[in-house]
């Protein structure tokens, strides 16, 4: 049997061995960090050590880190801004779009980059306080947004800025202070940490309205007993991610080489966001005429795990709102898949992907072109 190939790191990443060790060691300990006795104090120390490591990954101070149950909760917490007009980029993750149902959508260009002139115009037309949410890197295409520019414009209008850095952290350098955002969301399991933990990094200024109320943990900003073991794993993953950032250049080279090889087979291969700054690990590419669902099934049968868009709940096949916002025609968008690599990916993984892609294209791509799908 073929060794399975995992190329869906933007959905979730395998845990790094040192993370597994940290998580299992912490799981074997008893102690509620709010307890004053020794077991409680040891658990508290584990949490605070990890908090410092998470802060260091993004150049923030430990006191600025609010630990949450994950990236989704962190985004929801940042967007819990009653009384503020919310503006979100059209390519945000569902966990930003859904909590801000009435938000104004900032358009993006054909590369998926947020339209800064439009943002400026929109802010000029708003009375009262506002919040702008623009992600650092897109989960489907990997396209990196000019967040510093967004901050410059938004702050000129005294608007708060939230940045979803869930996909960016661990893949590119993220500097909370240099970005100048007011809040920044992180997730552990996208960077080799465990599922079930994330963080919202908060500048000194904005006061958060909590989503979860209760025991006063996280200095009143997020109630609930700390998920000590997962937090310990997050800390180790953050420390390793900062150290392993150089390895991402290798991943980028493998990814670029993969795209070049496919392009030789299919000149004009649609790769979304290829002309702009992208995450080193992500490739969103279309096989014209072959539905994404058909592709991912075929890849799975060949032992290659890739994805047809974001891993969410529904299982429904809907056109990607990200590609739609970029103006990609539906028939092309519906044949796009996402390939995302990570810390354990090898050249052989990409070879397997390329082989499978080519055989699929040979089998289905041509046939579909003879009899195009309805």
């Amino acid at each position: 049997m073929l060794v399975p190939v995992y190329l869906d790191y933007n959905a979730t990443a395998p845990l790094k061995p040192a993370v597994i060790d940290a998580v299992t060691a912490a799981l074997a300990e008893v102690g509620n960090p709010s307890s004053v006795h020794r077991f409680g104090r040891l658990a508290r120390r584990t949490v605070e050590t990890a908090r410092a490591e998470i802060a260091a990954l993004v150049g923030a101070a430990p006191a600025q880190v609010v630990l949450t149950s994950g990236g989704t909760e962190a985004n929801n917490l940042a967007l819990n801004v009653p009384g503020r007009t919310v503006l979100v980029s059209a390519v945000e993750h569902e966990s930003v779009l859904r909590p801000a149902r009435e938000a104004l959508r900032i358009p993006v260009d054909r590369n998926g980059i947020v339209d800064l002139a439009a943002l400026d115009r929109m802010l000029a037309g708003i009375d009262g306080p506002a919040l702008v949410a623009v992600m650092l890197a897109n989960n489907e295409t990997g396209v990196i947004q000019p967040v510093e520019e967004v901050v410059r414009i938004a702050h000129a209008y005294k608007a708060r800025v939230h940045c979803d850095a869930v996909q960016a952290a661990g893949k590119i350098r993220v500097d909370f202070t240099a970005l100048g955002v007011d809040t920044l969301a992180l997730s552990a399991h996208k960077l080799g940490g465990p599922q079930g933990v994330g963080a919202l990094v908060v500048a000194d200024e904005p006061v958060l309205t909590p989503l979860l109320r209760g025991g006063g943990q996280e200095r009143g900003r997020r109630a609930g007993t700390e998920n000590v073991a997962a937090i310990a794993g997050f800390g180790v993953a953050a420390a390793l991610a900062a150290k392993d950032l150089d390895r991402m250049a290798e991943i980028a080279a493998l990814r670029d080489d993969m795209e070049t090889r496919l392009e030789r087979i299919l000149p004009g291969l649609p790769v979304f966001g290829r002309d702009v700054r992208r995450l080193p690990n992500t490739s969103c590419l279309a096989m014209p005429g072959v539905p994404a669902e058909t592709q991912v099934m075929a890849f799975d049968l060949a032992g290659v795990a890739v994805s047809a868009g974001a891993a969410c709940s529904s299982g429904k096949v809907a056109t990607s709102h990200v590609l739609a916002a970029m103006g990609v025609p539906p028939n092309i968008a519906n044949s796009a898949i996402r390939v995302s690599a990570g810390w354990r990916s090898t050249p052989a993984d990409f070879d397997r992907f390329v082989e499978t892609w080519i055989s699929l294209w040979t089998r289905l791509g041509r046939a579909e072109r003879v009899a195009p799908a309805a």
Partner: protein
Amino acid sequence: MTMSSPALNVGNGSSAAPAGRAGANEPKKPIYLDYQATTPMDPRVLDAMLPYFVEKFGNPHSRNHAYGWEAEEAVEKARKQVADLIGADEREIIFTSGATESNNLALTGVARFYKDRKNHIVTVVTEHKCVLDTCRHLEMEGFEVTYLPVRQNGLIDLDVLKQAITPKTVMVSVMAVNNEIGVIQPLEEIGHICREHGVFFHTDAAQAFGKIPLDVNRMNIDLMSISGHKIYGPKGIGALFVRRKPRVRLVPLIHGGGQERGFRSGTLPTPLCVGLGEAAAIAKREMTAEAERLKKLRDRFYERIMSRLPEVYLNGDLENRIPGNLNLSFAYVEGEGLMMGIKDLSVSSGSACTSASLEPSYVLRALGVDEELAHTSLRIGFGRFTTEAEVDYAADRIIEAVQKLREMSPLWELAQEGIDLKSIQWAAH
């Protein structure tokens, strides 16, 4: 004190000792008697979780490949295990990050969904902080909340509950078991009253799930908050039972990818879900025998204390109480001094969430325990890994510490001479 007592070594048993970290020159670990704050993981639970940290790391919501399906299957098995422990259908279980989130979701979710028709909530003064804080916030949003008092034994008066329900009442939220005093509220009767009046019944079962038999149908429970780390499972995972028939609707608290049928978005942490499921399955098999064992230990401890120390008061009803809890006030000792005197026992002087503060426990105050006595109180929690030797050792240490503090106390001396301390006019200084 002698740190080489054979009884003390028991405290370093499998329950608390971290794997591979008990160095010879490390100080001995205290005996863990704080099972209401959190519990050690059961090794069987950890074993069940491990594969999902290692090779089965998929995102359970990935629909495109085997990694995702494998994780999803594990999550669904866990959901069934949780449902089975309370007689629910697995489709009625929503995974959350813990009981705090479950309580927040149940209260705000239901209140906000029905706010156009009903705007009144009934709860109890001794609820967990996260219920009370959420209710206070709902009051700011315009809801009305009635906080029922408790009787001296910590239980609510059912007639007072009945009178509190109005046509505007949407929900009654009463905890199953109190986290400080361990008393079990009359759930079946409360459920009956709620159903009769057509109001939803939510119960915070963080301290009850896996400890006492719960049946959502027999007890007419519409929403139930569940915690993982109180039943030898992992932290960071909990659940909310939401009845389907008759259906309870709620507004989600966390929006996004639409996981958990839209009630709670966010990637489910597969290993943690598996841990909660396994902990529930073990509890289902072992609850009865374990309760019996813990009751024996608890009674042994209680009798040892009561037979050797006068002026010790039990807080909360003894009959309607989970077997793993005692809450005792030791008159004429100074609370902080007592804690210092029993440093090799890990017990709590209040609810864990507020124990760092010096405020007297609001739960004890609600029972009518006066402030001074409340300050002398200890919560002692027994659990799956507590041994008879630990219990005896802990009781002896407490007895010793209390006797020593009383010998030094002028108040104790006055009380022994029969002087009513309340009658003394203390000079100001």
